[in-house]
């Protein structure tokens, strides 16, 4: 258990900046996730924490210990690789024991701890099997056991579930979370799947093109996105440009491009949003916050139905609102197949309107 501190860490490959100014503090015992689309620098960040590559500038500390350019074997980390990286010429038992051997743990204790670790990932008695003889999901769990058996201070996981099918994914995910909670290890988890990140993390760092977009709890990044990218990536918000018409008291009314008006609370906004009449900002609307108009005239949006589907739990609509596609999800609602191509009105409750800073 240790805090992990990245102090203005930057990584460049030649002229290309893979990670620009990563600056955050991971608390001891926390389940911390790096989330972002492919190529955004998640693996690069994780590898620097592991010591497989070193920052171009900045510092990495475990508590007060400066590990910026320390080689990986001295860091006391456990890492699970995306492709597992099990040693093909060793048995399962030998794979798991490898880290204990390098730590010069006595033979009999090695045996006991390997058995216990395999037991923990539900692979008890698999010691003498060969790596090639077990399934992908089992290999995944061996990799996890190998990382956990050394009781590392920090556990690093690079998209550990990406090669598993949906069912196994869910199982293994809760398994990882359970083990992490039991052992209280500081865990850094890399994924590009936001649902996965929301489900397991204490906090999430969202990255794009090497730049940190937002750091917060799942609740925060979902309900209070700091910018358009996070809003669209996490909450599937539809983002519409608007002009401020009136900003009085705690309310603000804006006019959208096609002319309709929306009123919302000023406090439901990303930080740094200012309210001056005539200025532009962005309105972000989550699909599930939108309701059928049902005769209401305020906070009304009109658009052409492009697509309507019924999934059982909900009905999903795509509306063309003056060129922008608005996603709407209605719970307990039966879509009308004839509605496609028709004009359709939806209502957005005031407390569900969210404001983002206008784009320059």
């Amino acid at each position: 258990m240790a805090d992990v501190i990245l102090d203005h860490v930057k990584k460049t490959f030649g002229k290309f900046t893979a990670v620009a100014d990563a600056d955050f503090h991971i608390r001891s015992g926390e389940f911390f996730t790096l989330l972002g689309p492919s190529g955004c620098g998640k693996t690069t960040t994780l590898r620097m924490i592991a010591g497989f590559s070193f920052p171009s500038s900045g510092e990495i500390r475990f508590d007060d210990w400066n590990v910026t350019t320390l080689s990986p074997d001295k860091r006391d980390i456990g890492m699970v690789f995306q492709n597992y990286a099990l040693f093909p010429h060793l048995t399962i038992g030998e794979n798991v024991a490898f880290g204990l051997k390098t730590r010069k743990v006595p033979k009999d204790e090695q045996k006991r701890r390997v058995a216990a670790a395999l037991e923990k990932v539900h692979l008890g008695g698999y010691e003498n099997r060969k790596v090639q003889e077990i399934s992908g999901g089992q290999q995944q769990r061996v990799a996890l056991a190998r990382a956990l058996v050394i009781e590392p201070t920090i556990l690093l996981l690079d998209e550990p579930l990406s090669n598993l099918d949906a069912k196994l994914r869910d199982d293994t995910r809760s398994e990882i979370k359970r083990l992490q909670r039991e052992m209280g290890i500081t865990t850094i988890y890399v994924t590009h799947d936001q649902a996965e990140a929301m489900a397991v993390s204490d906090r999430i760092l969202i990255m794009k093109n090497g730049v940190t977009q937002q750091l917060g709890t799942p609740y925060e990044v979902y309900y209070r996105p700091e910018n358009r990218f996070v809003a669209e990536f996490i909450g599937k918000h539809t983002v519409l440009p608007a002009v401020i018409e009136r900003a009085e008291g705690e309310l603000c009314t804006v006019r959208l491009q096609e002319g309709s008006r929306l009123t919302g609370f000023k406090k439901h906004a990303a930080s740094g949003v200012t309210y001056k009449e005539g200025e532009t900002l962005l309105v972000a609307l989550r699909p599930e916050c939108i309701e059928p108009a049902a005769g209401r005239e305020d906070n009304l949006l009109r658009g052409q139905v492009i697509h309507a589907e019924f999934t059982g739990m909900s009905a999903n609509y795509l509306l063309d609102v003056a060129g922008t596609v608005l996603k709407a999800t209605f719970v307990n609602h039966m879509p009308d197949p004839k509605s496609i191509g028709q004009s359709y009105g939806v209502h957005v409750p005031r407390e569900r309107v969210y404001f983002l800073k206008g784009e320059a």
Partner: protein
Amino acid sequence: MNNRSASRRLPISSRPWFIYVVLLPVFFVLLGYVVYPLISIFKDGFFVDGHFSLDLYRRFFNTTSMTNLEATWNSFYISVLSVITCGIVGVGMAFLLESFEFPGRRMLKAFAVIPMALPSLIGAFSFDFLYGESGIIPRGLKVLFGLPQVPFYLDGIAGVLMMHTFTMYTYFYLPVSAALRNADTSLEEAANGLGCNKWQVFWRVRLPMLTPSIVAASMLVFMISMASYTAPLIYGVDRTLTMQIVISRTNGDLAMASCQSTILALISISFLVLMRIYESRRSYASVSKGTPVHRKEVKNKAARVVAIVASFAAVLFLMLPILTIILISFSVNGKWTTQVLPTQYTIQYYIDLFSNPKILAPIRNSLIMSSAATIGNVIFGVIAAYFISRRRFRGRGVVDKLIMLPWSLPGTVVGISLIAAFNVPTVFSFGQVFVGTFFILPIAYFVRHLPLVYRSTYASFAQTDGSCEEAARGLGAGWLYTFGKIVLPMVAGGIASGAILGFVQGIGEFVASILLYTPSSMPISVAINNQMYSFRFGTACAYGTLQIVLVAVLLLISEKIKGDSTASAI
């Protein structure tokens, strides 16, 4: 400021220049034993008595005494003809064995690759014993039919072509049968369905799919034929480039040999470049593993009988050279004159092999020199392959190409270039003159077989997962421990099979050996050659049999290792 303090504390192994320091021995070896010798022959071709001169090249391209031009032309057209004959035999065999099911097919398939295990010199001699003017087959036919003269015999360029075809058709046969096995017959069925008849399907669909392997094999056979020295030597075809190089050298005209070698090297290297360009352009359009080829069963009774007889005949033909060598190894020296087959037999020469120190010496020499070269190859190959496959650094491609360069160089060129380079003291020979010492041959073997060992090692590095190394480091293992316990074991199969191949080549090497050997370092092949020329056929063939057995055993071991390692790869 942050930036500077971070890089100042960077461990030495992560500094950008570190890789170049580690690779210094690799650069040294490449520069000293590959680049510098080539520069030496190039340079020697332009200097006469220490002055720059184009004299040698004028002599080479002299149109009144056409020797060199004729030799170049001969080498060229022998190579073209070899490509054609090897192509016909190799592609024909591949089609026969992959498209038809007949009695004897499996047996023939197993024996089809036998020529690959035959060391070139012993193969050439056995051909002469079998099909030469006083060969077993022509004489046998003469006696059998009471002819006044032998009805035919192989000699000159026809002999060379026969020899080339026998030893090199596998370069067509193997890739083409692989391509046929992996071919997607649904394409042919589709073409059939579109109204093409059988021949149209063959010409328009099947053959184009085989084009890449046929083109690559053609270039390979052309290159090897250009480099061929043993076959012209045995069949007395003096006017080829390789023969001329050795003749110049024997006459003491090293400068002319250098000039001729330069030209041969240029031809070979341009073919290597052409091959690489072709391979890089090659598109793997049809890789869908569709329906595998269905072999047509030969059902007709008579055809089945013909097939089985022909298969046996073919296997016999493939095995005859080896059988002949074994037979003659038991024949008494000097007693086989005009008879069809030797008449007196003994096992004396096998006893000699292991008891007569003079006979034993070449065997010991070959084993020692080949081992030394192989150990060097493995050390060099592992270091180079590891860094080139796992690290990105400037100059990586150049180093890779330099290591592969000797693969395209004829043995004669390697031999002459080493003479040109090391008949004076140099930095690379630590101030010694290597020519005329024991060291020069292991160096020649090292250079010639470097690409083989390197390629094989590189391939297994490329196939294994680099993140295993990182995983081990992350689990607390130091670099050296990781290398020994994780990296090496994962590529051990590839290293071993590359090393065995290199060693086998060293045991059979003749071309560079004949140019560079000294009495104290005479290898088996040279001993065979010398014994043959003193008509001690029995002794020569006992050596030859030993060589064949060694090669066969080692190749089997290598196959076994390869099989095991592919089975255990994930």
